[in-house]
């Protein structure tokens, strides 16, 4: 760009500062959302790795039981009989620490001598521990190390005894030393850890004779190591497997992938709305300067120079906006990380470490997305500006005439996009990414249809509003006359409102589905479980509690539930749930079942199981007789007949429901996860709950909850999970609001001259203001109305396609009137707010000055 053009353009930006500030804000918000979601997703992933890979970052493989701990003799045999050396035994579980505000941390015990193989050439975290403390750690029971950081936050000193809750036990652990690490990564990992000797961990966690995991270091290039790996594979008994670490992380990560992808899609939607805003303002700036551009062209500026001027101007603003956005994103990301981590803790697995990592990639991604959006949005206006003919530019009607002609073409293209989006959904049977792309296609298509619909709607309004007199007739026509800009404003508002609407419908449907499901699934009157703030804990309800509760006369009968997270090579991660009776027997809603509800339970005593919808979806199990699921039990492989597929919203990983009797014969597991109590007089639920609470008060961490209470807390968890989504919905609304505010305000401010003429021919300030608000109101109303069908269509996709593909479950589509009132309300509020400043100016400006130019 040459200097005079640069000068012109900076002058323009200075003159229209408010407009440009709004533009920068719009870009900044869009970019901030992308950056913050990316930071939140990446930090959550990192937290996951840090929580899992505490001390064995160099290991390549893990030996794990498919659902629980395994015999320690496996380790001894591998070392002594097979001569495998690079093996580290681990005994671990999650515990709660009251002095840390009930935080969940991992208690991990290892053999420090075996662990040495992982610290060949780097500093071990144990280097900060005195030799005396190390001696005590190994030789004395009940001793542990924690990180200096953790100690500080809990106010613990070396030598203190800390109370820790594990299952129904309260453990007293003596902290004999504080770990320090020079490595940032490692000290983060250590922040969620209580480190003990392996013997101590076995004793504290009631795992004497068992190991949770063996870490291995296998060199994939070394033939001897590969031979050993095969040897190990052959040796391991049924139910114990060796897995490559990267695959293991991958399979767990795939659970949260859909969740993170959905967040990403929401952030992209915000930028999508932002693109409209940018397009709006850049094209407006072109129109504002049509006479200057015409003059420039007539004095010899080339088309290329004009094009470059507009693009550079937009990019300059884009860079400023993106920079602010990146900074805002980092700030926003901090809040979002907390929300995302909490959701993952509620839904998937326990993260003992909350990590906040800002990677350069997140920054670059967000920044480039901002610049790219600006570039795309400015392309059309810049091209238009370069096509201006010096002779035509003085007449605005030329442009509007052109735009009016292309309305139909735009509408047609819009229709095509929608059709393409629809086809994509049908064709892409299971792909989540493709269905998200079709959401964008449909939104884009809808926005292209907006101009022609606006024109039609305004014609209708001019008829309907004609009884209001002159202003009623003028206002809709004014909008039609300036469709090239009003349509974009309407379109961007429509897109934003329909996104908000569809997300509201989706959350609402989800919630009502879950509420219904809880009613049918939770039939027992009182529930007893361990107070575990974490989903991954293996601690169960002590078995003797069954006897104790049955001794209460109020208790009619007791059902037990055993829930384990099972990892099988065929079906991945899922929940295996064993029940002594089907708690939902009569109310259970089936997608498909081979026989009547009451017969199914009889069949489950012999060889049949039930699977949840998400289990069926994930493993592509079609309803039908004779479907078989094969599992590795503790007594070898076993085929189970699928007796039915039922609706379940409790586990995204999927549930396999088995009768307790069958489970206990096939698996050597006598633990119980929770109890369901049926009491003789349901009026006495609350009093019996209280009675049990005081009667069982010697078990410190037992949770005894009435049916109502449990449902309430389940819904609370649900709502907490959707805090992230709601927060993003709010942010999209903010972007939309800024977008509409800036474009409509710019639109009205440009009409100074027109207002001057109207004033000169006798219109009062009051009438002008009335006209102005009516116009804006009409634009808002149009957007609100358009967003209803678009929002409904999107919500259908979210509920029936995106949710199914993300989580494997079908929701009941529920719509409530308040969603629509909310949507139209936001649209009206934004458009009317946009009229405030222009209306104020109308009264201030001097008529003579306004029309002097004419």
């Amino acid at each position, binding site marked *: 760009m040459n200097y005079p053009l640069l000068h012109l353009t900076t002058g323009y930006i200075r003159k229209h500062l408010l407009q440009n500030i709004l533009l920068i804000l719009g870009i900044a918000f869009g970019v901030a959302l992308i950056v913050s979601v990316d930071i939140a997703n990446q930090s959550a992933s990192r937290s996951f790795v840090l929580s899992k890979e505490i001390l064995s970052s160099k290991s390549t493989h893990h030996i794990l039981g498919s659902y629980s701990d395994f015999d320690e003799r496996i380790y001894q045999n591998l070392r*002594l009989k097979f001569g495998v050396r690079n093996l580290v035994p681990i005994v671990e579980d999650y515990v709660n620490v009251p002095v840390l505000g009930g935080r969940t941390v991992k208690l991990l015990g290892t053999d420090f001598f075996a662990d040495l193989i992982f610290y*060949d050439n780097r500093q071990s975290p144990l*280097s900060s521990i005195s030799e005396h403390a190390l*001696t005590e750690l*190994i030789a*004395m029971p009940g001793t542990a190390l924690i990180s200096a950081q953790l100690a500080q936050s809990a106010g613990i000193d070396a030598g203190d005894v800390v109370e820790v809750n594990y299952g129904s036990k309260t453990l007293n652990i003596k902290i004999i030393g504080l770990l320090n690490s020079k490595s940032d990564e490692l000290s983060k990992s250590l922040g969620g850890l209580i480190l003990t000797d392996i013997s*101590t961990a076995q*004793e504290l966690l009631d795992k004497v004779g068992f190991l949770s995991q063996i870490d291995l270091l296998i060199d994939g290039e070394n033939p001897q190591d590969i031979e050993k790996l095969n040897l190990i594979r052959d040796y391991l008994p049924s139910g114990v497997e060796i897995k490559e670490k990267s695959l293991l992380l991958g399979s767990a990560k795939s659970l949260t992938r859909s969740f993170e992808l959905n967040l990403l899609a929401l952030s992209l939607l915000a930028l999508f709305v932002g693109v409209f805003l940018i397009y709006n303002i850049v094209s407006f700036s072109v129109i504002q300067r049509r006479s200057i551009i015409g003059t420039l062209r007539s004095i010899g500026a080339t088309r290329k120079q004009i094009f470059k001027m507009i693009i550079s101007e937009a990019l300059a603003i884009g860079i400023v906006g993106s920079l602010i956005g990146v900074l805002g994103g980092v700030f926003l990301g901090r809040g979002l990380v907390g929300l995302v981590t909490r959701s993952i803790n509620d839904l998937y697995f326990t993260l003992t470490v909350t990590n906040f990592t800002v990677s350069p990639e997140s920054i670059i991604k967000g920044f480039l997305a901002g610049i790219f959006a600006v570039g795309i949005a400015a392309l059309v206006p810049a091209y238009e500006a370069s096509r201006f003919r010096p002779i035509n530019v003085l007449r605005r009607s030329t442009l509007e005439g052109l735009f009016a002609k292309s309305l139909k073409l735009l509408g047609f293209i819009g229709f095509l996009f929608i059709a393409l989006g629809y086809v994509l959904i049908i064709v892409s049977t299971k792909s989540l990414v493709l269905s998200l792309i079709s959401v964008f296609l449909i939104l884009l298509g809808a926005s292209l249809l907006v101009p022609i619909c606006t024109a039609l709607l305004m014609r209708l309004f001019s008829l309907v509003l004609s009884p209001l007199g002159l202003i009623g007739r003028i206002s809709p026509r004014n909008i039609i006359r300036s469709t090239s800009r009003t349509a974009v404003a309407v379109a961007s508002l429509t897109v934003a409102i329909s996104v908000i609407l569809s997300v509201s419908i989706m959350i609402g449907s989800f919630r009502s589905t879950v509420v219904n499901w809880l009613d049918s699934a939770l039939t027992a009157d009182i529930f007893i479980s361990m107070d575990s703030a974490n989903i991954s804990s293996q601690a169960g309800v002590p078995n003797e509690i069954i006897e104790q509760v049955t001794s209460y006369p109020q208790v009619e009968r007791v059902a037990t539930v055993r829930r384990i997270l099972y990892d099988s090579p065929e079906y991945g991660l899922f929940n295996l749930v064993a029940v002594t009776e089907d708690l939902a027997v009569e109310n259970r809603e089936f997608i498909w079942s081979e026989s009547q509800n009451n017969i199914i339970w009889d069949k489950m005593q012999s060889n049949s199981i039930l699977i949840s919808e998400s289990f069926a979806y994930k493993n592509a199990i079609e309803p039908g007789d004779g479907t078989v699921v094969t599992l590795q039990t503790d007594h070898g492989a076993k085929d189970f007949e699928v007796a039915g597929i039922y609706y379940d919203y409790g586990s995204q990983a999927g549930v396999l429901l088995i009768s307790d009797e069958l489970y206990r014969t096939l698996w050597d597991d006598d633990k119980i996860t929770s109890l369901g109590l049926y009491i003789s007089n349901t009026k006495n639920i609350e009093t019996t709950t209280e009675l049990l609470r005081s009667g069982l008060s010697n078990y410190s961490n037992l949770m005894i909850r009435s049916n109502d209470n449990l449902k309430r807390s389940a819904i609370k968890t649900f709502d907490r999970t959707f805090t992230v989504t709601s927060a993003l919905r709010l942010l999209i609304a903010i972007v939309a609001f800024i977008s509409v505010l800036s474009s409509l305000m710019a639109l009205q401010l440009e009409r100074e001259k027109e207002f001057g003429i109207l004033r000169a021919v006798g219109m009062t300030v009051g009438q002008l203001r009335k006209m102005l608000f009516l116009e804006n109101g009409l634009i808002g109303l149009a957007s609100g109305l358009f967003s209803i069908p678009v929002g409904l269509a999107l919500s259908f996709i979210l509920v029936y396609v995106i949710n199914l593909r993300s989580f494997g479950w079908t929701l009941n589509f529920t719509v409530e009137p308040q969603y629509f009132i909310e949507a139209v309300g936001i649209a009206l509020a934004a458009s009317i707010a946009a009229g405030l400043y222009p209306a104020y100016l109308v009264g201030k400006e001097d008529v003579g000055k306004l029309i002097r130019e004419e």
Partner: protein
Amino acid sequence: MCIRLILFILLPIFTMAIVSCNENKNSQETGNVVQSLSGNDTTGFARADAPRNFVFPDDFGPHPQFQTEWWYYTGNLSDEDGREFGYQLTFFRRALSPDKIERESKWATSQIYFAHFALTDVKEGEFYSSERWSRGAAGLAGAQTKPFQVWIDSWSIKVDDKSFRLRAQDGPVSIDLLLNPLKAEVLQGDKGLSQKSKDPGNASYYFSQTRIESSGSIFMHGEEFEVSGLSWLDREWSTSALGEDQEGWDWFSIQLDDGQEIMLYQLRLNGGGIDPFSSGSLVGVKGDVTPLKAEDFKIEVLDTWKSPETNTVYPSKWQISIPKHDIKLIVTPLLNNQELLLSFIYWEGAVKVSGSGFSGKGYVELTGYKPQN
């Protein structure tokens, strides 16, 4: 031989191994470690404070009431073609606490085991060294009296009928040897009580097998060598600490071709000089033992060797004189580079012996030498 070694080695190896394996490639830390050793808590452990009755073979087994203990085998072997090898296989036991606490977990222990394995291939000029460490629990490592065995993973010394079987393998090298003692156990010091300083109890129980017929296999890079030769065993257990003024030691075990053996060690003092508690013994052809005091022998260094790995300068040729017995020997390493680059770095290697009317083989151990610059 190994009191010097053990005193220097055990705590450092324990701490350093856990803290950072191979981190300290030089032994600059030694001074500090010696200080920390001096303050080591030995309360509750049995002390070697009076002569005792040694019972064989029971005393080959562990003595867990003492803090430290070791089984120290070295030997010179050769195959049919006269190709020479030296080997060292040593097991150490260290108690973390004198109390035996009853615990549920099989992993619970207060006994730690370490082992060093080295092999010298004189022909190729190669020296291999490796180490193992483990808790003495869960079957991973331990020592027992009946039948005698001590092991870490697959490294072991076991009684096999009347013989002892030694097995160790690391990477491309391994040994599998059968050992038959040719002489009765030699009680070192005062009937097996080996005083290390003037403080009572600062001593060890110490016996040796000075001439052990050895045969078996050495494997190197897939090649097997049928070997035979002589080995030497030192058994020692104690609860004692090293004097602050001791810098290191030089230890010699010599098997003369005429059927006699000589054991000598000298404790080097900080700033030069030899500790008066340095001592040794001369074992006659029939197993008769003559104790040697510090003033009875003299060790002169004739040459030195600088390690390219650690820049440590070690003596590499000696003249040993025992005037009372009319013995004068020249001792030369079979290979200069027999430095063990393990958690604790020291020099221990096979040597040959010559002199006026004498010839033989042996092992020398050098510790406490500091790297130069």
